[in-house]
Structure formats: structure tokens, C-alpha cells
């Protein structure tokens, strides 16, 4: 089977398992789901009604395939709390989360790539040591803590940026960016450390290769050796990590949206969890997981485009 076809089959299998697992976690865990949703004070009639609503009398696999069928046709059910279609709720909040994650990623890469290049140019030099220490420090900083510290510095102490709240782009690009800058910094300032260290280390490995010696022996100036010969073969782990880290970024977005009161998908999920809004949680988790799997699949594809060797033989890590 060609490589792409095998990858597609694998994607479908993983997606199936992921949605099934989501469904199971939410549905199979101890306790009557109806009681979980309604709370201990619910009347037996309410519970019976809800059970019928949810179809809890049928076997779980049957219910799962029902759910999967409607999910495939774009229906994730309605929120038990306010009757809003789950899909609609997600679509409404998705742009905020996407903007947050993209801005965070841009900040992270914008810091990581130049710092890694500068650090790898003189390993053990002053810049390398300073950037390594900075990365070490930021890496030890949980995002919820960094968020608080940033709010304390920029909003409480100096009152430069809004502490919480979200302004949509429709009310002005600048206001929108102002409301997003601290949240994306919170994520980006931690993320860059991971990317920088991976890239720097791969650059150092690559720089020891014979083909780098050969490039230098051709009389290429150091910067051209670094950018034209070393950077691309060193970027594969970075790309893998970028894909994997989107998971961390999503988790981070949940926290950051909570800290900064941004109306994103993460906050929707948290609200659902606190409200015991089972159908909303189920839909949101499945959506996030599927999105994450698909993004990682795309990253793998990107990998294949960038590394000519992968097109021939693909080794799994």
C-alpha cells in the first residue's frame, strides 16, 4: 500500500478509537450519568426522563454509533443546560482559541528560531549560556503561574494592558490585539523554550556532520552554512514537536482562557464540566481530540514534503 494511503487508514483508525474513547470516558465512568448531570437532589421522574432522553437504556456501543452517525452529519447534540447546539457553541468560540494559539505559536517560533541559530553558532558562548538559562527558567514556569505574573506586572503594577476580557476584531484590530497579547505571551513565552532547545540541539548535531564540513570546505561563509545547509536538516524534530506540542497548547489555552476570561473553546469545555453538561463536554472533547489528530496528521505530511528521504522510506520513531 502506498505510504499516503496507509497514513490515511491509520488516521481513520485513530479517529475512530479517539471518539470511542471519548464517548467511553464520559459514559462508562462510575455513577449514573443522569444523576451526575442532575445532581443528587433530582427526582426519580427527572432522572428517568433524562435517561430516556439520553437513550441510556440501550447498550453503549449502539449509543456510540448513533452519536457518531449524527456527529458525522455535523450534529453533536444540544447543550443540556441551555439547549444551544453544541456545534454552534464550538463554532462561535473557535476563532478566539485559534487566534490565541496561532499568536502564541508565532511568538514562540519568532523567539525560538533566531535564538537557536545564534546559540548554535557559538555553543558554550555567552549568548548560548544566557539563552539556555533563560529557557531553563521559563521551562520551569507553569502557564497559570506565568499568566498571573504577567497580569501582576502589566496590568496591576503598570496598567499597560487589560487584565482580562476579550475584544473581537470587529471592534477594532488594535483593541483586539491588546486583549490577546498577554494571553498569547503567556503561552508563547513557555513554548519557545521547548522549540529553541530542540532546534539548538539538532543544529549542533547537524553541525558536526561531514556535509557541514564539506560546505565549509567549499568556502561558504558561516551564516550561509548555518542557514542553507544546517537549518533544514535540523528542523525535523522541531516540526514533530510543533505537532505534539499543539496538545500542550490546547491544554494551555484552556487555562489561559480561564485566567484571562477569553470566550474560547477551552472555557466552553470548563463551563460544561462545572455545569455537568455532559453532552457539551462530550462534543467538545471529541472536537478537540479530532482537531488535534488531524493537525498532527498534517504535520506528518509537512514532514514528508520537507524531508526527501521520508518519501522513500518512512521510519517510525
Amino acid at each position, binding site marked *: 500500500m502506498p505510504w499516503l494511503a496507509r497514513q490515511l487508514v491509520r488516521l481513520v483508525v*485513530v479517529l475512530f*478509537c*479517539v471518539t470511542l474513547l471519548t464517548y467511553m*470516558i*464520559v459514559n462508562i*465512568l*462510575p*455513577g449514573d450519568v443522569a444523576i*451526575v448531570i442532575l445532581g443528587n437532589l433530582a427526582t426519580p421522574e427527572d432522572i428517568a426522563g433524562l435517561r430516556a432522553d439520553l437513550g441510556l437504556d440501550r447498550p453503549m456501543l449502539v449509543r456510540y454509533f448513533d452519536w457518531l452517525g449524527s456527529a458525522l452529519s455535523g450534529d453533536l447534540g444540544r447543550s443540556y443546560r441551555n439547549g444551544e447546539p453544541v456545534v454552534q457553541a464550538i463554532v462561535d468560540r473557535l476563532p478566539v482559541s485559534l487566534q490565541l494559539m496561532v499568536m502564541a505559536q508565532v511568538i514562540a517560533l519568532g523567539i525560538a528560531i533566531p535564538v537557536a541559530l545564534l546559540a548554535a553558532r557559538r*555553543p*558554550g558562548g555567552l549568548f548560548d*549560556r544566557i539563552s*539556555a538559562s533563560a529557557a*531553563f*527558567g521559563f*521551562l*520551569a*514556569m*507553569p502557564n*497559570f*503561574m506565568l499568566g*498571573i*505574573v504577567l*497580569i*501582576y506586572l502589566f496590568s*496591576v503594577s503598570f496598567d499597560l494592558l487589560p487584565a482580562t476580557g476579550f475584544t473581537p476584531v470587529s471592534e477594532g484590530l488594535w483593541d483586539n490585539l491588546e486583549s490577546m497579547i498577554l494571553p498569547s505571551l503567556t503561552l508563547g513565552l513557555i513554548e519557545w*523554550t*521547548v522549540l529553541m*532547545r*530542540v532546534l*539548538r*540541539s*539538532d543544529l549542533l548535531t547537524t553541525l558536526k556532520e561531514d556535509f557541514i564540513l564539506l560546505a565549509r570546505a567549499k568556502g561558504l561563509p558561516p551564516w550561509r552554512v548555518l542557514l542553507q545547509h544546517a537549518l533544514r536538516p535540523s528542523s525535523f*524534530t522541531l516540526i*514533530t*514537536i510543533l505537532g*505534539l*506540542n*499543539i*496538545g*500542550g*497548547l*490546547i*491544554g*494551555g489555552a*484552556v*487555562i489561559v482562557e480561564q*485566567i484571562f476570561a477569553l470566550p474560547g473553546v477551552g472555557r466552553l*469545555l*470548563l463551563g460544561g*464540566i*462545572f455545569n455537568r453538561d455532559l453532552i457539551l463536554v462530550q462534543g467538545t*472533547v471529541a472536537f*478537540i*481530540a479530532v482537531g*488535534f*489528530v488531524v493537525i*498532527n496528521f498534517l504535520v506528518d505530511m509537512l514532514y514528508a514534503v520537507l524531508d526527501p528521504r521520508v518519501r522513500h522510506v518512512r521510519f*517510525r*520513531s
Partner: protein
Amino acid sequence: MSASAAKVAAIAATGPRRRWRWALALPLGWLLLVVFLAITADWIGLPDPSAQELILRRKPPSAEFLLGTDNLGRDMLSRVIYGARTSLIVGICAPILGFLVGGAIGMSAGYFRGKVDTLAVGFIDILLAFPSLVLALTFTAYLGQSLFNVTLALGILSIPAAARVARANTLAWANRDFVLAARTIGASDWRILTREILPNLLPPMFAFWLVAISVIIVAEGALSFLGLGIPAPQPSWGGMIADGREALDVAPYTALIPAAVMFATVLSLNFVGDIVRNMVDPRRSAL
């Protein structure tokens, strides 16, 4: 655990080259202090970490309250120390669970290859397909919030990362000629796994475990910060930071003190983990 796998890979990938012995003293001393206080918390005359005294709320650090009091007038020092206990229990136990299960899965996958490997990798892929925090939230939300459940959830989440490290290392070692040599003398698979491969696997796994502790402590903090980790009256660093966040303008230290303690602990753990890894395993191991 996708994010932590990446982070661990990043931590494993680099590391300051030259270290002085005394540089180890500070982080190690801090960790020992934290562990010591967490163990002896009950016997060193600390006030009840849950005792509220609303008249005494938001007192800045003083001789009476070394680290001040929080929004409900509880002694911060006591809460920080009992919080350390929570963090350490979760941070140490969860990765052990993950490493026992994940290590076994990864070793079998890397050694036996073939179908075992396909199954194990599939299992890892699926667990990795969930953003870890989202999965942890869902687990604890439905399992119910308790120290045990949080530990269990985070332990399950550390399985894939441990399995990957174990598998990658096993793959590398199982291809060595000394494993072939062990087969030529008629050693059984069990003997090869335990005598030839495991001793080579332990050092990188140990270094990875040290890093996993810090990752799990952060994860527990995040869950508690969101109010989905350790249930409310029980002190936890993440929960304290969340509480302090509400008074950031009037009493910033209620958030910044637990934040600083957590930062120092995680930093120390990473630092020690880094050095241990450099000592025991000069080869790159993770991912």
C-alpha cells in the same frame, strides 16, 4: 502525554555542559527542604492549614505569619507546606504508575517488535491523541475529585510518554550485538529482557522520571488551579495560586508566594534531572 513528552524530549535534548559541584547544592538543598517539611508537617507545630480566621485575612508576611495569610485568613506557610505534601505525593506516585505500566508496554514493544509493537504503538498513539490536560480534566471531573483520582488520572496520562522512552531505548539496545550474543548462548527472552536490556534502560528511565515529577507537579497545579484537582479545603499550590489571583491587586503575595515556591521546586527538579541525565546517560535517549 503529548505536551510533556515534547517537553521531556526538549529537556533531554540539551543541557548546560559544564557544571560545578556546588551548583548542585542549591537545588538539591531546596528539594531536600521541601521533602523534609512535607514529611514532618504534622509534627513541627504548624497551624491547621484549613483553619479560617477571617479577621486575620490577607495579612502580609510578619513574625507571626511568616508568609502572611490568605483570603480566608489561613496561614500561608502552613498551606504551602501541606501543599508541598500534595504535590509530592501526586508528583512521585503518578509517574511511578505510568512508568511501571508504560515501561512494560514500551519494553515489550521494542523487544518483541511485530504485532506487539503495532498494538502498543497504536495504544500510545490513541492516548497521545488527546491533549493531556483535556483528558485529565475529563477524567477527574467524572471520576470525582480526590487525591487518589488525580494521581490515577495523571498516572494514566504518563503511560504513553514512559512507553515511548522505554520503547525507543529498548529498540536501540535490542539491536546491539550483545543481545544477539545472549541469544547464541541460549538465554531466554525473560533473561535477556531483565539481565541485558533492563540495566541499560534504568538510567535513562530514572532521569526521565525526575523530569516527569516536575511535569506532573505542574499538571496537578493546573488541575487544582482550574478547581478540578485536589478538592477545595485541602491545600495545593495550584489552588492557592487560583485563590490568590482574586486579590492580585490588594494582596499579590497570596498568589506570588505559592507561585515562587512552585517555580523553585520545578526549577530544582529540572536542574537535578538534567545533571543526573548527564551523569548516567551521555547518549540521547528520549524520543
